């Protein structure tokens, strides 16, 4: 009000006294905070409160949504057919059973091994082939860091082997691909036969497209790989660029947990129920030294991926819990109702002695 008067009078440019007065006034009021709903903390706000109705509705809705999701997930998981075969023990000849390490490390032993799997149910193509390793710390910090993304990507960065020790250089020449991950590449191979007819294993497109296209260079060829004193895992064909070495690309995506599966390939044929599949395994990879298991997995997928009952069960549990809570709240309201905004619940009404809360 005052400020208004002051500004108008000074704008009018009246007598000298009035201007000096108004300037005094405006000077005085210069520290006056400007009104805005923001500075006065009076912004319009929605203030939701948990009314019993809202509480019960929320819990019920969660329950009603979650249980169907759980059921759908469970049924999706039910439809997935999965064959798991652990072969690390079975593939060691009986005479080496006490010294498996010697068996796997010897270059003269026969590493071939034949396993027979039976298909429990019809497996529609594509049937995915995985190898599963156990107790293998692909997530170990030393292991995870032991790679050079730059080197993998482009030929120009061949010498970028900073983190790759001790698989960085071989006789002063950089190893491509360097590092422990590449060095320890999985090298068991599988051949599948149904009634002596070999099943085609498609090993294309088992890695992420982005990896193939952007992370592993098409001009980068393996060099000095597995030439050092210590041989780790698989060798790489030095005439194939890294972008086409899909086994390597898959392997280089380090797993999060010490038990992991990695995609080996696809069988693009339906497998009939009760079919017997003969698998010829070249058992090279050493998991014996650290007691890790090796498994071969054949699995179909559904929209939730592989066989995974857990998510369905979890959904049903949480949904059930919500419904249970909703019922409980309903019962509690029936037994001990409280009118909302009932002032008799205010602390000063509840305790006559005047002891709030």
């Amino acid at each position, binding site marked *: 009000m005052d400020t208004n008067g002051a500004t108008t009078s000074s704008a009018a440019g009246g007598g000298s006294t009035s201007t000096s007065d108004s300037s005094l006034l405006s000077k005085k009021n210069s520290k006056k905070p400007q009104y805005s709903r923001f500075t006065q903390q009076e912004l319009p706000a929605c*203030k939701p409160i948990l009314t019993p109705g809202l509480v019960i509705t929320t819990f019920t809705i969660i329950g009603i949504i979650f249980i169907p*999701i759980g059921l759908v997930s469970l049924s999706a998981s039910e439809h997935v057919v*999965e064959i798991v075969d652990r072969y690390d023990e079975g593939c060691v000849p009986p005479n080496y059973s006490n010294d498996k390490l010697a068996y796997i490390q010897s270059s003269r032993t026969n590493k071939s091994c034949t396993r027979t799997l039976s298909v429990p149910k019809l497996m529609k193509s594509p049937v995915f082939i995985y190898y599963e390793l156990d107790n293998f710390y692909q997530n*170990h910090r030393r292991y995870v860091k032991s790679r050079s993304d730059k080197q993998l990507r482009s030929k120009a960065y061949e010498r970028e082997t900073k983190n790759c020790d001790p698989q960085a250089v071989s006789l002063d020449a950089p190893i491509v691909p360097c590092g422990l991950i590449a060095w320890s590449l999985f090298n068991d191979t599988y051949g599948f036969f149904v009634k002596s007819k070999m099943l085609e294993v498609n090993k294309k497109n088992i890695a992420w497209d982005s990896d193939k296209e952007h992370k592993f260079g098409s001009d980068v060829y393996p060099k000095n790989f597995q030439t050092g004193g210590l041989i780790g895992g698989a060798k790489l064909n030095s005439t194939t660029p890294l972008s086409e070495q899909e086994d390597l690309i898959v392997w280089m995506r380090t797993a*999060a947990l*010490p038990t992991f599966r990695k995609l080996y390939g696809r069988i693009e044929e339906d497998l009939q129920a009760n079919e017997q599949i003969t698998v010829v395994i070249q058992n090279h990879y050493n998991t014996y030294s650290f007691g890790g298991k090796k498994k071969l997995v054949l699995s179909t*997928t559904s929209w939730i991926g592989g066989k995974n009952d857990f998510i369905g069960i979890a959904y049903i549990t949480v949904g059930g819990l919500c419904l249970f809570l909703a019922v409980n709240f309903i019962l509690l309201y029936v037994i001990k109702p409280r009118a909302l*905004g009932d002032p008799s619940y205010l602390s000063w009404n509840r305790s006559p002695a005047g002891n709030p809360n």
Partner: protein
Amino acid sequence: MARGRIRARLRRSHLYTFSCLRPSAAEEGPHSIEGPGYSRIVHCNQPLMHNKKPFKYRSNYISTTKYNFVTFLPKALYEQFHRVANLYFLGTAIISVTPLSPFSAVSMIAPLAFVVGLSMAKEALEDWRRFMQDMKVNTRKVKVHKEDGIFGNKTWQKVQVGDVVKVEKDQFFPADLLLLSSSYEDGICYVETMNLDGETNLKVKRALEVTLSLDEDEAFKNFTGTITCEDPNPSLYTFVGNFEYDRQVYALDPSQILLRDSKLRNTTFVYGIAIFAGHDSKVMQNATKSPSKRSRIERKMDYIIYVLFSLLLMISLISSIGFAVKTKFYMPDWWYLQPQHTDDYYNPEKPVLSGVSHLVTALVLYGYLIPISLYVSIEVVKVLQASFINQDIQMYDEETGNPAQARTSNLNEELGQVDTILSDKTGTLTCNQMDFLKCSIAGTAYGVCSSEVELAAAQQMAIDLEDQDAERSTGSRQKGKQQEIELETVVTSRDEKDHKSPIKGFSFEDSRIMKGNWLREPNADVIMLFFRILAICHTAIPELNEETGSYTYEAESPDEGAFLVAAREFGFEFFKRTQSGVFVRERYSVAGQPIDREFKILNMLEFTSKRKRMTVIVRDEDGQILLLCKGADSIIFDRLSKNGRLYEEDTNKHLNEYGEAGLRTLALAYRKLEESEYSAWNNEFQKAKTSIGADRETLLENVAEMMERDLILIGATAVEDKLQKGVPQCIDKLAQAGLKIWVLTGDKMETAINIGYACSLLRQGMKQICITANSSDAKETLSLFVTVQVVKENILMQITNASQMIKLENDPHAAFALIIDGKTLAYALEDDMKQQFLGLAVDCASVICCRVSPKQKALVTRLVKEGTGKTTLAIGDGANDVGMIQEADIGVGISGVEGMQAVMASDFSVAQFRFLERLLVVHGHWCYKRIAQMVCYFFYKNIAFGLTLFYFEAFTGFSGQSVYDDWYMLLFNVVLTSLPVISLGVFEQDVSSEVCLQFPALYQQGPRNLFFDWYRILGWMGNGLYSSLIIFFLNIIIFYDQAFRSGGQTADMAALGTTMFTCIIWALNCQIALTMSHFTWIQHLFIWGSIGTWYLFLFVYGMLSPTISGNAYQILVEALAPAPIYWSATLLVTVACNLPYMAHICFQRCFHPMDHHIIQEIKYYKKDVEDQRMWSRERSKARQKTKIGFTARVDAKIRQLRGKLQRKHTSLEMHSPVTPS
């Protein structure tokens, strides 16, 4: 100047009978000054002598800053790294540049630099403000003797010890000065020491007789002298020194010393010599270092940090031991790691070494448990909260143009936890302005205006009556309404009056005696005498205002000024004072013409706090000798003659009413003297006056006593010590909010008690416990030690008796007030007694300490703070409050008055006391809840996140690998979760500001600490633990080993980490949404925006070159978004995380609702609009049980009335047992 000269001829000291008698120099002789503590030598008028040792004293430059340009960096850095948490962060930042770090160096150093930088910038800004304030003081101008009797202006900082300084009227003294002479012939001057001790009465200082001649500029041409005195010390009331002048040595005492920061009043000029300059001056010696304060929540946060630090250390140790064991026993088998070719970090042969180095890594990795961002966020939030306080338009004072100001932002939440308010009186509660409001003359009460207390009480009563009416049947409502109307008319009449009479000091209104109408009153002669006493019995000097032609008065106390103004308005204008007489112009006389009358002053027996009365003996124009006396009612009533008690009963009744209305009262009386009687007495009096010896004063008092008897009572005056606007209401509200209010004042006990009444801290029917040290008893005892002992025992006995009395009190409504004076307080604050004293004080409803020194104010504050362990708030306006303001947990300064010292020392400043209500009840309440919720949530969030890192460790052989990308972690605290929590800390409102004010009881949630107790903190931590478990293990199991999408791909570390992180972002942001109860668009934007930002970031990050994004390259677009399991996992985990909390709050709200829940519901259903009766009833109930404030006063009154009614009822029933219905 001419006017000043005329006045200067007055020998003011003749007016004074008791205190201003000049002791002759020969009488006492110089002090024997030697030994340590008395080494200061000042060469007067030779400041150059002080340029070399040993006389090189400190200059008059003052500096209250903490730092200067050189010391700022090291000192401020030291302060910053004094905090444990900052030290830890510094450690991690150092580690981060070594290869041991699991993260990049920037992500560690940047936040630390930000936190430390922000805090240091704040420090620098505050220090800069202090510096500017110092400069303002240092560059004030004062006249200093240059040479040859010429005075020139100098800035204060250039004033040196030994300089002769000329200070003019209403200027402050630049240093501690020795008074040489003044514009008055007898070398006295008046000093206002408000800034030093808060006393409003002017003090008289006087120069030595020998220096009186130095009253002109030229006189200082060849002036020299030497002062030997004590070393600088903080005692304001003592001074020992000798002054050597003309080869004579004179003793100096405190009455010649003018202290820095006090002000020259009523005196045109004085000359003085600077003795103590700058930091040597007594006022600066009194200053204490401004302490750095931390809020209760912050201190508790330290404990939580320790808890978390132990947790951090524990899990770090677990993972280090785990790592060492894995490395030693398992790693040799892990051929793919090439264990035979490792550096020390992974060397299986040196497990201890690798374990230790891993410990360092782990401490950094799990650092998310101790959120550095918490400190950043809290700083940001507090600065924003402070800016809201500064911006609050309802705490802006139109008159002074000052808004409220949060000068330190780190105490915002402490405002919500205050338990005791310690308030200064003058300038804080009162405006230091007296208004003549009512009087009682010849047994008739005049004056229709109501005091503020009455008005406030009337308003409250009206509200209460309305409520009661509402509850009662409709039949009696009519009557209530009528009453209400009556009360309203009272209120409005006051408002009109405010427009009508703008005369300062005069709010009286009564047509019966205004404008000469008193002539027609029945007791006109008594009324005339009454007015004459007002116009004659005082020590003031009139001053003609040349512009308006009216007189203003320079009085020693504001009461006197008010009396003179009143007399003037009644037509008895005091316009001239000479050495021997007082001239009064009487406008309304019987003759109808203005008459100037002269009253010869024969004697003046002035006011002392011991006598509590003032008397003048005058001879009027008819030669009649009159003794006119004004004084405290009890004193006057004791000295009435038998036939002078005609009006005693009525006057007494009126005095009680005035007292009830919070007014200060004085009774007026007179006595006619016979010539012979007077001369006999006067001889005796003169004899006493010239007597020599220590007991002269006692002798004089006894003689005066002889004369002041057989008085005839005329009436009484009632003066309102004008309270600041809204003070009683504010005190009432604060009391209802459960706050205790103590008044600490430098003023007299009577004044303090009056103010106590005025602000309803005291009321009729309250039992007053006065604790005093009876010093007269003590004087008789010879040994000093024994004296102290006796006095102390006496006080202790009083205290224990009073405590006993309170314990034995049965009436639940009984209220006690403790009143204690400074002298007694000095003993009561000693170690052996202070606990008993505090115990008593806490039991009393109100506590008033009067005549306390600044130091004692601080000591009382410390006693309350440390003794009760509760939060204290000190509020004051003057330099004398600085100690208390600094000592209290929160110091509030009143801005807008002259001195800025209190504001400079304060943490918050408001323009008026009444803004304290809003500051505490609204801002304090909000800030407390905001910070408490924010801190709790912060710990929750960081535990929930940090622990997932730890769990993952267990799956990686404790190798220190994190499942998340470095960038996710960096962004977690900086972008993805910080804004919602800041919006919680800045914008959350449980209830609106109106509701806060309407329901003061809600404030108690703060002092009770309902939102930051260990139960709640641990609850949140438990919630964090639960969330971390859910997030981690649900994700691990869902993404265990099978394909996670129909394309057959299995989840790698990047996919798992990203999913887990998505779940964290969702869960945490939904959690904070559940915590909040107030959503403006800002909160919506921040919460849902944070989630959106995460997806946006993931998308953009995935688009970047794979050399930057690494495994996260195109992870959202290619791998996760097309996989339904990614989305369903997010939904599942988010809901599962928040389910327990949600159930908890639903359960709590439904079955154990807190007050703010109910009020939210009432507001939500608009019940307050529909059922306004209920709403106003609850409002009036929503207060803490309190015994102070006018609501309590009204309650007491109602109780009293009801009691009476009941008695009447029962007696009626006894008489007529059968009543027809």
